């Protein structure tokens, strides 16, 4: 319980604090303090205003810089490079020379017939990554996944070329991971066990083996299987991909034989330049020595 003395003490203490604050400084000192204090306040207010102005100007300049860089990147075609860090199929990530233009620009989407990737350099670049034609053959797989019937019908009615390229990598990356742990042999067994496959499904699997998993032996087997079944609407592209798989596997003579019709322009110039470039490269490098690892 609070005693009256303590309550009184608290009141007196409050009064003492009130009086002390009220009578602490003589008027002259108070006036001097006030004037001095105002100078300090004025100086600090100006300083803060100046700092804010500087921050604003720097911010505007930074913003202009970012906008300028963005505009430059968009104009020079580097913007997609900057923003394409999200997961993409390994085949596409590792295709710097073929999948990009002379200045590293990503090639705009074109129809397969018009696709003419930059010829491979003189050096043997193929074994290091997916072939320059890896990208075009991704699209059919996507089309197969999304609307196979419509795509197959349209393709058979129009032209023998593959379907236009689109956002294939995303759909591929979604479908492929659960099976990545299987070996090529297991996958082949699994494929056979599942019964006869539709040509489109074979094409899709071959494409995945080739450009996503980079299992060229499995891919070659599936390309052969696809072509053995008549090939369907994507036979020409499958034939070219098969040749690429042979190059990857360093089956020199077979690769030369497979590329020769393309290089000779037997398919209306389809992949002619790429095939010629590959042939030049194969002739330059010669057949692999037996001890050379594949």
């Amino acid at each position: 319980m609070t005693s009256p003395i303590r309550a009184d003490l608290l009141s007196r203490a409050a009064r003492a604090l009130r009086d002390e604050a009220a009578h602490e400084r003589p008027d002259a000192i108070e006036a001097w303090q006030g004037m001095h204090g105002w100078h300090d306040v004025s100086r600090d207010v100006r300083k803060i205003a100046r700092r804010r102005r500087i921050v604003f100007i720097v911010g505007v300049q930074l913003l202009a810089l970012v906008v300028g860089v963005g505009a430059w990147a968009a104009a020079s075609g580097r913007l997609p490079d900057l923003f394409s860090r999200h997961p993409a199929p390994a085949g596409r990530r590792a295709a710097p020379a073929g999948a990009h233009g002379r200045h590293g620009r990503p090639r705009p989407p074109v129809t397969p017939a018009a696709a003419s990737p930059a010829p491979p350099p003189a050096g043997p670049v193929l074994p290091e990554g997916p072939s320059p034609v890896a990208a075009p053959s991704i699209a059919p797989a996507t089309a197969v996944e999304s609307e196979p019937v419509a795509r197959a019908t349209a393709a058979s009615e129009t032209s023998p070329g593959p379907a236009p390229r689109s956002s294939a990598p995303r759909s591929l990356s979604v479908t492929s991971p659960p099976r990545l742990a299987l070996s090529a042999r297991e996958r082949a067994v699994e494929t056979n066990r599942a019964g006869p496959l539709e040509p489109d499904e074979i094409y899709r699997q071959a494409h995945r083996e080739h450009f996503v998993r980079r299992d060229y032996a499995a891919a070659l087997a599936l390309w052969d299987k696809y072509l053995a079944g008549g090939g369907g609407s994507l036979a020409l592209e499958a034939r070219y991909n098969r040749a690429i798989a042979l190059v990857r596997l360093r089956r020199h003579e077979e690769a030369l034989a497979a590329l020769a019709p393309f290089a000779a322009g037997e398919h209306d110039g389809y992949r002619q330049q790429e095939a010629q470039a590959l042939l030049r490269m194969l002739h330059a490098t010669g057949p692999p020595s037996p001890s050379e690892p594949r």
Partner: protein
Amino acid sequence: MADDADNEATLVERLARGDEAALRDVYRAHRSALLRFARRLVGDAAAADDLVHEVFVRLPRAVRRMQPGAPLGGFLIAVAVNNARHHVRAAARRRRAQTRLAQEPRAPSGGTPDGEVERRQLAQALSRALDQLPLDQRVAFVLCAVEERTSADAATLAGTNESTMRARLFHARRKLREHLAGYHDEGGS
């Protein structure tokens, strides 16, 4: 009365535009009252000066948040309350250091007929006791008990409601009585 309100509204408008002359006018008109409040709140002259300085430096931006028609003096106190925390801590640290060093031995009570020393000692004891309180309760006590404002007025200044302010004041008083209980035992008076 209406003229005063108009003048103050104009002043606030000029302040919000960053008019330095307006800030100077406000400083001259309100500094003393604000300093007294700050002195009571933090219990230390130097810390009170710092707090007042900070309030006026922040005022040109803070005034943009001011409700139209609110008294400027009350708004300044509200800004001071919002910025008082580290000044209160600084003042409390200084008082603790002084206490440890025992630089100011307490004079025997009743030594001066006018009770000046007694009053000063009591004020210092209260400041030390206030250091033990949370800032909210400290603000409540200073506004209501020291400055003798109504709880509604204090609640407005502290940005809370009246019942909360009363509760804070109640708890503050209870704790302060406990802290001041030893004042007589220590030979205060």
